[in-house]
């Protein structure tokens, strides 16, 4: 579904930003403008790494109204499955493909004020959001936690661009902590809060928000889960009449794509629900790793999110 609308791009510029973080400027091969997007959107980047096709989602960090190119930032992750390591090997002039932009983390434009809470590389969607808020003359504040001054990306630029009233930085190495309760207790009615960063940080901020009496409608988060590794297993694709093996470092979706079967997907991180697949029969245990299905749905074992979930057992047949 998503495959035919991919956009071929060239890596026009690579900028080292901070320790282990590179920024990529991606321009269309055909010279046409990129589609406009809404702040908070991501693209799925397709990488041909030898015989392996890798697809990873990255938040768009350039200004949403700038159609000359897309910009993403990539952190080299320890124990990378290969995507971020690949992005740290490529050079200017190399070609990639990106999906159409998809937004699972949009700003609520009805808000009177917006609080952005970023941890580490979780800053990227907020770069686009701040550009949009600033242009729309909407009140916002960024609270940005980083490991250290050298690990943190863009904080000097942001302080310079938006000023210390709107940009607050916190460095773990210096013992700083985001004063979450003071922030939550002093916002005008109609404020929205957005958090992007490590899973523990997201959970902590959302819980603190609810405990401070904030409605869940005003609390927003984005987390992408990398497909976790595990023991290889076999699956049966009923419509394609194919039996395939999902490798240790592969997701079901990746294994299906490698076998030439086209399955729908959007976020590839267990969040959006696009790759929901019907389970026809299941003799064993599904390891549901997504945050999309409800606990009841997970217990029923009739649906699986093939981008992140795995299987242990004798037989798993999917409607694909």
């Amino acid at each position, binding site marked *: 579904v998503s495959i035919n609308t991919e956009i071929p791009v060239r890596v026009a510029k690579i900028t080292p930003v901070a320790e282990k973080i590179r920024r990529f400027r991606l321009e269309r091969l055909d010279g046409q403008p990129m589609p406009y997007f809404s702040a908070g959107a991501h693209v799925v980047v397709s990488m041909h790494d030898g015989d392996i096709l890798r697809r990873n989602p990255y938040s768009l960090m350039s200004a949403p109204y700038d159609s000359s190119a897309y910009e993403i930032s990539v952190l080299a992750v320890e124990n990378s499955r290969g995507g971020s390591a690949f992005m740290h090997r490529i050079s200017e002039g190399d070609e990639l493909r990106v999906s159409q932009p998809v937004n699972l983390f949009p700003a*609520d434009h*009805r*808000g*009177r004020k917006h609080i952005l809470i970023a941890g580490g590389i979780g800053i990227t969607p907020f770069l686009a959001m701040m550009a949009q808020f600033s242009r729309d003359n909407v009140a916002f504040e960024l609270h940005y936690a980083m490991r250290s001054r050298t690990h943190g990306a863009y904080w000097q630029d942001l302080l310079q661009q938006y000023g210390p009233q709107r940009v607050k930085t916190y460095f773990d190495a210096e013992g700083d902590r985001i004063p979450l309760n003071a922030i*939550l*207790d*002093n*916002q*005008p*009615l*109609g*404020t*929205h809060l957005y958090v992007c960063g490590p899973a523990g940080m997201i959970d902590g901020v959302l819980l603190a928000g*609810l*405990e*401070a*009496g*904030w*409605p*869940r*409608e*005003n609390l927003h988060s984005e987390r992408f889960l990398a497909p976790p590794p595990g023991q290889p297993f076999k699956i049966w694709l009923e419509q394609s009449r194919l039996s395939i093996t999902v490798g240790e470092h592969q997701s079901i979706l990746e294994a299906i794509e490698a076998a030439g079967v086209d399955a729908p997907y959007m976020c590839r991180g267990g969040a959006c629900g696009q790759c929901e697949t019907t389970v026809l029969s299941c003799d064993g245990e599904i390891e549901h790793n997504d945050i999309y299905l409800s606990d009841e749905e997970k217990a029923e074992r009739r649906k699986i999110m093939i981008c992140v979930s795995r299987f242990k057992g004798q037989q798993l047949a999917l409607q694909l």
Partner: protein
Amino acid sequence: MLVQGIKSRPTYRGIAIEPHAKRHIIALEGEGALALMEQKAELTPEILSRCEVLYVPHGSQGQDHELALAALGADIFWQAPTIPTLLFRLKGSLTNAKMGTRLYISGTEGFIGQAMQIALDLGMDFNSIPTEHRGSLARRVQCVHCKGITENVTSSPFQCSHCGLTLLVRDHYSRRLAAFQGVNIDAEEPGTAPDPEELFS
């Protein structure tokens, strides 16, 4: 004559006090007072010390609901003479309120809609505001032709109080206008409208 299944028709799920809220603003009209009184058991002194209750008797004049509300012992109890004066006060309270403040609304649909309109204009999310319908079924209706709003409509069709057209009252609701939509029913042959039915009393 009402078309069933129109999605914009509001539903009211009842008001329940949000335990984590730092402040509660409770806007009540007429029989809406009972929606709060029936929760008296849950209203601990701590919750009441965080409550601002705004009340307008409106259609329940003489029922003395205000005496019962005042006796609850909320931090603030304020009685308004009319709906517009209550809405003015509500706007002031919400404008200065901080996140952690929750709003609750109960009364007739026209009142709930107008109080909701103020909250939405201040950026609050519709789904975060508990509402409870109490009292008459009378509707606040906008004439889609002249844009005039008629309050307390109890029958359909009815005559627009502004332009005089005969209007069919629909379930089609506008949150922005806080009104149901009324559409001319005898446009082709004026005077052939069916007799009014008392649907919303």
